[in-house]
């Protein structure tokens, strides 16, 4: 495919015949049981994906620390006060994030930061 885009004229190659894609790219499903206490809902998923979550958070922190002192201060604050801040979240999020931290072995402040990632990137 190639494309040329400008304000007046758009040329795009529209793909055809790509569905269904390779079944290896199809995403599997986990059940989240809303009848369980929040701390237990994500237990299996958290255990299965702990390594990948940790790798993402490490990468995320590495790059946003480069943005300057403001982001560094926010991350340090979240890291050190994670538990206190988590307790202020509404039901069921405080319990779910704590359960995720407990089941992955990731610091609660870092798990809180992960759940704030969208807000970080809207500037």
């Amino acid at each position, binding site marked *: 495919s190639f494309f040329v885009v400008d304000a007046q004229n758009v040329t795009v190659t*529209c793909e055809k015949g790509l569905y269904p894609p390779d079944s290896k790219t199809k995403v*599997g499903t986990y059940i989240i*049981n809303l009848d369980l206490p929040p701390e237990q809902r*994500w237990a299996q998923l958290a255990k299965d994906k702990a390594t990948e979550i940790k790798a993402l958070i490490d990468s995320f922190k590495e790059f946003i620390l480069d943005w300057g002192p403001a982001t560094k201060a*926010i991350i340090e604050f979240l890291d050190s006060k994670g538990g206190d801040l988590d307790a*202020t979240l509404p039901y069921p999020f405080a319990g779910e994030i704590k359960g995720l931290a407990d089941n992955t072995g990731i610091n609660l402040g870092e798990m809180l930061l992960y*759940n704030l990632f969208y807000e*970080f990137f*809207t500037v």
Partner: protein
Amino acid sequence: CTSIVAEDPSGALYHARNLDFGLFIGWDVKNNTWAVTERLRPLIVNLDWQSGGRTVFKSVNFAGYTGILTAVKPKLFTMSMDERFNIDGGFVGIIKWLLGDHKQKWMGFLTRDVMENATSYSQARTMLANTVMLSPAYFILGGNQSGEGTVITRSREAAVDIWKMSNASRWYILETNYDHWEAPLFLDDRRAPAHKCMDAMGQKNTGFAGIFNVLSSQPVLNKLTTYTALMKVSTGELETYIRTCKDPCSPW
């Protein structure tokens, strides 16, 4: 991101999206990839949120993220969220929240509340439009009745604009990461190519296959794309595919 709500000739509504994330976060010059995007892909899961043994809604999540970015509530509505960049963005909201102002809702918490608790398309739209949030966003909402598709452009405080499919003069409504009434950044125009491919596909070919092809056309598909999700509200179907864009490919 690119989100599309489209209606087939029988009135059935489809909602699909590409989730693009990780711009300017670590370009790997050796592999031509974005670092965070690469680390997000192994975390993609479909979730079936159940109560009493029954599905309440289904979503596509990054494992460990408790909010909702893409979801279907069977027979009622579908929702996706596209990032809205703004100077008065989430940073201001985060600092206010850290300083104790907890009246604002985290974006992911709001969408989760909507998926769990809203019982109609109109109720979902009201919640997404009127709740004070930590950050701006675009919410793309599809219903289960003909013509039910809306793009809600949000500031942190309220809806800046509510754009309905019926006002878009098309059988579909489409949003990327720019206010629909303004031209996108010329370096990042996924909107015009997506429109071109939707129009080329035509309403009669609307369905998972046709929309997947549109979302596979560059630059709608690009190096930041982590997944493509396809939803049909009437049946509650949700299919998600992990995406990679092989070179030559647009970096965003």
